[in-house]
């Protein structure tokens, strides 16, 4: 699999597009800033959310059991899935039992993580993503490139092309209202034809057994209201202890994600409707292992708002696909290696350690520190490229020997100024591809000190 720098370089090559991508996401980050700076208590909310989530992660078994008990009492069927395979099998078996042939699904990164769509399709079940952005990437047969705005990397003209090809809209149309209306009409049919609705879960409440799904399009409500069968799929970290805690998270989520005060729909589910059936599938898929790690436990605080992606200067300029992981960006670069370190070993290095992600994170995950910790893990596991390992070893060795360090500097000052340009600027010098090297001074600071500074 190509590494992040390779895929990022390909993305940056189309400068205009990379710029457009950067600006689209910066616009969302700016909206977030505007929204949060209106709340003087913002930092307090973050602190509170972080504490609640840390409590949840350290009391996960108890809270999950409490949730299961309360949800079951409400008539909900609760299922436990160890990994993606089990998750998909459970969902399929429920659908099979009800002889479901068509499913509508509202946005869920968890089902992306499990690759549920291709699994169900292989078993002859049609599954339609009803979130507009997610549906667009589904029509392209691609995964989302962003966890909140799955099609943020696609221009409206390209969506016009896609819709023309797949839905028969007018050729060359790019008016968002026209395209959205076409999608709406098309999806409406899918909603009516479907036999079951699948949703994700934003927050599951341990002390009530209920859960909340946040959408802007109302598609979760439509998909579950029109059908008797509702399957909700959630990661075990999505719990919060009490209904009272919900206010903290609902205030943080949409402001962080898109700069809205709250999502248009915050739908509360408390058991099946009369003559309906409701299932919740609780997925582990490596989460308990992360919860046992002192270094990475806090990454489970994540409420999937996407703010770290919107602010990440690397994500904005390299696009979601450059991460080759269901969850891209800073949080994805922590969760990816936790799942498969070798496959995702370049992700923790796709970061300039600017720490902007840490400062926007509504649940105060120390993202950049965890990325740094991953780099150490990758070095310990022997997955660091040889060139990096060698250069750092040599540098470490030289820096322990001040005389050698000085000598190397002196040599460079003798030689480098006389080198012809082609020896300095060539394919071995990645620095010099688009940048000049600094001019080599006549003397180092320490040499100047020796000559000019009186010792007192």
């Amino acid at each position, binding site marked *: 699999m190509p590494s992040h720098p390779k895929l990022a370089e390909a993305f940056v090559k189309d400068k205009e597009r*990379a710029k457009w991508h950067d600006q689209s996401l910066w616009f969302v980050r700016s909206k977030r800033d505007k929204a949060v700076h209106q709340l003087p208590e913002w930092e307090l909310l973050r602190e509170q959310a972080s504490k609640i989530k840390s409590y949840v992660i350290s009391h996960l078994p108890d809270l999950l059991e409490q949730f299961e008990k309360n949800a079951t009492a409400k008539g909900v069927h609760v299922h436990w899935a160890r990994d993606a395979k089990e998750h998909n099998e459970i969902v399929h078996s429920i659908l099979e039992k009800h002889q479901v042939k068509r499913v509508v699904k509202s946005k869920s990164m968890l089902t992306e993580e499990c690759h549920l769509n291709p699994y169900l399709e292989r078993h002859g079940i049609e599954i339609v993503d009803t979130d507009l952005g997610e549906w667009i990437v589904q029509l392209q047969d691609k995964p989302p490139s962003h966890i909140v705005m799955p099609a943020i990397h696609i221009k409206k003209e390209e969506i016009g092309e896609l819709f023309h090809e797949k839905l028969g809209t007018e050729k060359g149309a790019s008016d968002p209202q026209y395209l959205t209306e076409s999608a709406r009409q098309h999806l409406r049919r899918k909603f009516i034809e479907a036999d079951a609705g699948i949703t994700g879960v934003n927050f599951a409440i341990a002390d009530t057994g209920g859960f909340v799904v946040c959408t802007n399009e109302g598609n979760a409500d439509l998909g579950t209201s029109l059908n008797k069968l509702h399957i909700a799929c959630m990661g075990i970290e999505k719990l919060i202890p009490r209904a009272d805690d919900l206010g903290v998270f609902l205030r943080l989520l949409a402001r962080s994600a898109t700069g809205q005060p709250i999502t248009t729909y915050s739908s509360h589910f408390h058991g099946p409707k009369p003559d309906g059936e409701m299932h919740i599938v609780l997925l582990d898929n490596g989460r308990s292992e992360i919860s046992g790690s002192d270094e990475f436990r806090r990454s489970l605080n994540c409420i999937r708002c996407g703010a770290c992606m919107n602010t990440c200067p690397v994500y904005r300029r390299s696009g979601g696909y450059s991460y080759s992981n269901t969850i891209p960006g800073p949080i994805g670069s922590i969760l990816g290696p936790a799942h498969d370190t070798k496959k995702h070993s370049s992700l923790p290095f796709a970061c300039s350690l600017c720490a902007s992600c840490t400062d926007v994170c509504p649940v105060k995950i120390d993202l950049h520190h965890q990325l740094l910790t991953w780099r150490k893990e990758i070095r310990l596991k022997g997955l660091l490229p040889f060139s990096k390992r060698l250069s750092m070893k040599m540098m470490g060795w030289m820096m322990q020997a001040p005389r050698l360090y000085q000598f190397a500097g002196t040599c460079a000052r003798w030689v480098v100024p006389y080198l012809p340009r082609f020896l300095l600027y060539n394919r071995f010098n990645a620095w010099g591809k688009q940048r000049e090297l600094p001019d080599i001074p006549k003397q180092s600071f320490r040499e100047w000190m020796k000559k000019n500074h009186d010792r007192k």
Partner: protein
Amino acid sequence: MAPQVGLFIPCYIDQLYPQVGIASLKILEHFGADVEYPESQTCCGQPMANTGCTNEVGPLALRFLEIFKSYDAVVCPSGSCVSMVKHHYDEYLGDHPDYKRLKEKTFEFCEYLTGPMGIKKLDGQFPHKVGLHQSCHGLRELRLASSSEVVGEPFGNARELLESIEGVEITTLQRPDECCGFGGTFAVAEEAVSCMMGEDRVYDHEQAGTEVLTALDMSCLMHMDGIIRRQKKPIRVMHIAEIFAECL
């Protein structure tokens, strides 16, 4: 007696930007500090630490502590290297009896001027439009200024000091504190993204009318200067200590 300051000059400033070390020394001495430059110093170990090579960092952290522990204060014209010493030595020196004190007495250059030395205003003139690049580690690790992500009262001592100089006009940027894309080995490992980030920062300063681009960290400036010179942009790059020294 004035407190004795151990001047911590990062390796790349020593070798590539001696004028920044000289300017820092001049300013500190101008305001009466008793400065010594311990010659056995080399590198704080940040490049190795940020690459995950912790084995190489331990001995350097211990060297650093031994070299600087006797001074009353350690002052360095780089927020990033100071952050390394203050925030990332714990795993190597956590148990060392002198480390806690070292953490407390290590300061970024402007932080030391405006804090312990109590300098609020600089005399002299610098009649230029100055673009202040907020280097990330000074900003979001050392909290030397308010960052745009965090809700709270804006602050920033370096900026205030710069503004106190007659003639200085600080330019207004579209993105006040976005990363320049240097990031140590990131600059070469992720060359494409790094350069695009740098270009975008330079462009932001260009549209804002920046004549002199400054920062608390020479590494960010080295990266942006490399782009500025390659693209022949009319922007001069100076470390903040150089601006202060020019006003003396």
